[in-house]
């Protein structure tokens, strides 16, 4: 994979991916447990992360999204089926497919800068070039002044940005973000969405963004994968054909965005109802919230 470096509007160096990769899950099933106790968490799941596109995966809590993230990262192997990167089957973790975890996973014993340099150091690839790139990335995510702070000294949003920088320095072909903004307060969350959106638009790196927040998914994504309840499968694919670069406020009032949202809601609602019948608490909450929403919009 190669990157082309040019100057962004704010003068920062931007590495733009010139030949983005694509990743495919082909008929993937993942069972947890042994023998008769084995239960499928992912069942016959197929989808493609198109090259240079941001795909958002949205589904009810506990439906197996993190398991899919682990399969893509290579931390788990499919029981059946394949994960293919540019047509090649993958089975091992690699810096080509990096996962940003649900909660912050910065090493608390390393400073922000050392955390960003962690990947190159581990591969013995640290050199003048990567060091300069680390400084640039810190600048880019607004953490230059915090380069020598430890993670515990950073706010939640700063930690998430440090983590983005730590992943980006490895030039992954595919980035998976597993509910990266969960747990941030509402204000920080919106800012992080704008931030991440800008980073993605600059870099054009094939990405999978997992979330339970439909507004977040529509604002960020080129495509939505709506998942079924456990075991996870793709229930519906919706293209988000909103123009880029996107602006949070514009998207909020956009007619098209609201159409997509209705469409996604209907599918999610059906899925939630199904698991509601099965006694799922999260689904019950969802149905309740949905009903309230319908009442206010009607």
């Amino acid at each position, binding site marked *: 994979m190669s990157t082309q470096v040019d100057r962004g*509007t*704010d*003068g*920062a160096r931007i590495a733009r991916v010139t030949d983005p990769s694509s990743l495919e899950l082909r008929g993937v099933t993942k069972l947890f447990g042994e023998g008769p106790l084995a239960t499928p968490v992912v069942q016959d799941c197929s989808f493609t992360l198109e090259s240079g596109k941001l795909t958002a995966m949205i589904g009810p809590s506990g439906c197996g999204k993190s398991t899919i993230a682990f399969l893509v*990262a*290579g*931390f788990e192997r499919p029981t059946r089926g394949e994960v293919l990167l540019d047509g090649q089957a993958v089975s091992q*973790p*690699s*810096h080509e*497919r*990096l*996962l940003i*975890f649900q*909660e912050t*996973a910065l*090493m*608390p*014993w*390393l400073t922000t800068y050392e955390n960003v340099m*962690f*990947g190159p*150091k*581990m*591969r013995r690839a640290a050199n003048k070039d990567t060091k300069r790139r680390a400084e640039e990335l810190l600048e*880019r*995510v*607004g*953490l*230059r*002044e*915090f380069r020598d702070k*430890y*993670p*515990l*000294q*950073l*706010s*939640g*949003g*700063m930690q998430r*940005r440090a983590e983005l920088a730590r992943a980006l320095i*490895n030039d992954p072909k595919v980035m998976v973000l597993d509910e990266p903004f969960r747990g941030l307060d509402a*204000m*920080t969350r919106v*800012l*992080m969405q*704008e*931030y991440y959106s*800008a980073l993605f638009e600059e870099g054009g790196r094939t990405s999978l963004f997992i979330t339970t927040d439909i507004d977040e998914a529509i604002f960020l994504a080129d495509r939505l994968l709506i998942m079924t309840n456990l075991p996870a499968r793709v229930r519906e694919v919706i293209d988000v054909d909103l123009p880029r670069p996107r602006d949070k406020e514009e998207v909020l009032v956009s007619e098209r965005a609201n159409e997509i949202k209705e469409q996604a809601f209907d599918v999610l609602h059906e899925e939630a109802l199904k698991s509601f019948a099965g006694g799922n608490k999260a689904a019950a909450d969802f149905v309740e919230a949905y009903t309230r929403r319908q009442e206010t919009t009607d």
Partner: protein
Amino acid sequence: MEMETRPEGQATEATEQGVPGTDQREVARTDGYQGAREARVGQSVQAPMAPVTGWALRRRKLRKALTGPAGRRGALGVVAFIALWQVVTKLDEWVGPQVPLVGALPAPSDVVLRLFELVATGGFWSSWYLSFGRVMWGFAFAMLVGIPFGLLMATSATAKRLLFPPFEVLRPIPPLAWVPLAILFWPTQELSITFVTFLGAFFTVVMNTVGGGEQIDRRYILAARSMGANKWRMFRRVVLPATLPSIATGAVVGMGITWEVVVAAELISGGGGGGSAGGGLGFLVWNSYQGGDIAAVVVGMISLGIAGYISSILVRMASNLTMPWKRLA
């Protein structure tokens, strides 16, 4: 507790400079927001306030501890305690009736007088030297052997299956029960006492190291694996630093145990010679008791308290040095 240090320090700084006292988290987060917004419009992020660090912070905290209301109350408590002790023990001399039980103890004034006599003797200092030496050697060997041993069991399932059962059988044996064997086994009395001291810290250090090594957040390991860490770098850059806090806890607890053990070992073994006030602080206490010198017993006890306190401060300082991220200054 350590985590509190910095925000407190900075908040003080802020108020001193006339900035309205903002909560540190708030300050940091506002900077974060600016980071997000400004990076888009192309301005640089503002520099945060220079934090109070190192000695300046420590000196300020010390001054506050000594002169602040908490410090004053603490001093008052100590003075009141000593005064009460003096009155209770001297009541028979001053008034007549002896206070039951505690009246037989030596008065603080007698203890201080005895202390002045003892510090003039070489034996008293040689006791300090001997006990400190036994504790430090035993403790150092416990760390030196215990940490690698614990890490081995934490990182290798085979090693754990092999080594853990015998370890678990030996662990509950009180170190003092080892004294007879230790005396038989080791050529010198000094080595026997040091060995028993070693045992006191060893099991604690190993248990904490194993526990810490096994509880490492799985995501650190996974992240390092996906970024291409080999076995050695995984150990050196992830497992070891992630286990350090537990090792430090083991060290602090283990140091406390070595002092308990050294005193008992000195009692049993007879101190290894060295005169009436020599032979170790534990021996000093026992020997003074047998000679009916109760004031010297109390001097020995207080010496043990101070020695234990000093050594736990040393351990904490060492652990702060190895874990700068825990200091956050």
